[in-house]
């Protein structure tokens, strides 16, 4: 059985080598940037980061955005995946339409929602033609921060729900039909079947989808940049700002470390909450 023992390492070797060279090594360089200044080990970069007047707002915005966007996306992705798996006619067309935002850049998504929310945009046109307002409102100005927030939430939900949906559709496809038939024989309602059969058996896919989505939510950048410019600071935007506008790689690296810590914390939490016991694997 020697070959079987070596096989997993053989299969993992390319990925491991790739990650060590192109991830771990540059990662170490960024960590060094964050914890040093002028060659000396220091926490100055972190102090500069947290003492900036924008920092608490930036942090709050990012967390709030993730807290609002991810649950909405989970509910929508589950509904969409359930609908797709129920269809008998036109399913490939519907699946294609639902999956469209998956192929779109966050930059493009930001521009798409900019077309709706800008001052001469479609939302203002509709509101005026319905007689609700007299003249166009500047939705994306500093005096309408909550509208900016809603616009960013809509753009994020619109853009990134499809990624979760496709993972969940794939996962649902792998659940044997017999379980549903058995549940139906015992008189389980569609909702009961969803809660008692689909959700538990979907756990590996749910875990994958949620981890991908939560981490991406902390990295929101181009959508915000296109819709709000600098009026709605988020962690990634500030990282970019410190890196290029303020030319301070150390503070930018400190921001990166902060995003990293939040992301890892939530990943571990999801791994724990949605763990699949080996005996329960399909």
């Amino acid at each position, binding site marked *: 059985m020697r070959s079987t023992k070596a096989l997993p390492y053989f299969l993992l070797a390319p990925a491991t080598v790739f990650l060590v060279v192109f991830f771990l090594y540059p990662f170490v360089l960024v960590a060094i940037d964050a914890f040093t200044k002028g060659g000396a080990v220091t926490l100055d970069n972190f102090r500069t980061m947290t003492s900036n007047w924008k920092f608490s707002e930036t942090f709050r915005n990012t967390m709030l955005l993730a807290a609002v966007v991810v649950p909405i996306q989970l509910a929508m992705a589950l509904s969409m995946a359930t609908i797709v798996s129920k269809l008998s006619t036109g399913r490939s067309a519907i699946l294609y339409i639902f999956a469209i935002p998956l192929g779109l850049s966050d930059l493009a998504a930001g521009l798409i929602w900019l077309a709706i929310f800008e001052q*001469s945009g479609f939302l203002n046109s509709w509101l005026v033609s319905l007689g609700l307002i007299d003249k*166009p409102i500047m939705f994306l100005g500093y005096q309408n921060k909550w509208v900016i927030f809603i616009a960013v939430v809509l753009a994020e939900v619109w853009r990134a729900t499809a990624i979760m949906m496709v993972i969940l559709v794939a996962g649902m496809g792998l*659940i044997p039909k017999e379980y549903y038939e058995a549940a139906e024989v015992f008189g389980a309602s569609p909702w009961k079947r969803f809660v008692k059969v689909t959700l538990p058996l979907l756990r590996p896919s749910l875990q994958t989808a949620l981890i991908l989505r939560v981490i991406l939510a902390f990295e929101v*950048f181009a959508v915000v940049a296109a819709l709000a410019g600098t009026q709605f600071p988020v962690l990634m935007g500030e990282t970019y700002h410190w890196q290029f506008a303020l030319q301070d790689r150390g503070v930018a690296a400190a921001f990166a470390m902060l995003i990293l810590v939040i992301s890892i914390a939530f990943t571990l939490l999801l791994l724990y909450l949605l763990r699949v016991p080996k005996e329960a694997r399909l």
Partner: protein
Amino acid sequence: MTVVTNDLPAVPAAVTDARKAGSGLLIACIVVLCVWVLLPIYLLLVNALSSPAEVTSFPKRMIPSFDFGSLSFFLNFQGVGKALWNSVVVALLTMVLSIGIGAPAGYALSRFDFPGKEAFRFLVLMTRAFPLPLLALPLAVLFIRTGLDDTAFGLAIVHTTLSLPFAVLITFSLFSGIPVELEEAAWTLGCNRWQAFRKVVLPLALPGIAASAVFAFTISWNEVFAAAVLTIENRTLTAFLLQSINVSPLYLKFAGGAALVVPALIFIFAVRKYLFAMWGIANR
């Protein structure tokens, strides 16, 4: 016990009524969701297919005037065609790299228990947890030293660090969902490990692998920041757009957005069969 055949289930009238109401609701949901997905794209295309003057005028019409002023201005912008080509090359390289490296790792994680497994999983997740943009900066220095700077392959490597964890996680989830007993049955029937994988597991997993290839391509196609940092002469479309978009008027932004969106629509359309086949697994 009676034998109920699959094509002729005995359904009472009340259940049929309930199903009809249910399907009405289902259709309503589908229509709403389709409008939700398609309308914003349509509005962007309306803007892209209007003249520059119409884009900045108010109020907006819902029907495009099919004036190609905005688009031709954008397309005649120097370097757009080359940027498009660069984007495709980088995305294809990323797709091949991440599936070629990621799928074996996903399979190993799903089928074996071995020392170091959790460490590898953690490494993969940590990769994804780290913001790529900052990673691109030390890599830029590294690439200049090795001659990979400003090349499609160099950028594809960075995009692969971004898409590889997707590929590993998705293929892991996928292979985990395929019962190991199927493989064991194939071994009993005389297949070796590779044959069993190729003849039993791969056909079941292929649609999902295709889906994760879609992710890899999409991630690369959509990526803005690393592309902007790592390419100078060989800019991809997103990097090119970002570079010109900061100084461009609304009609150029929307034409550029449309140029990003339309190829993406075509690409997703081209792989729609794989998405459909993924659904088909449920009918086994």
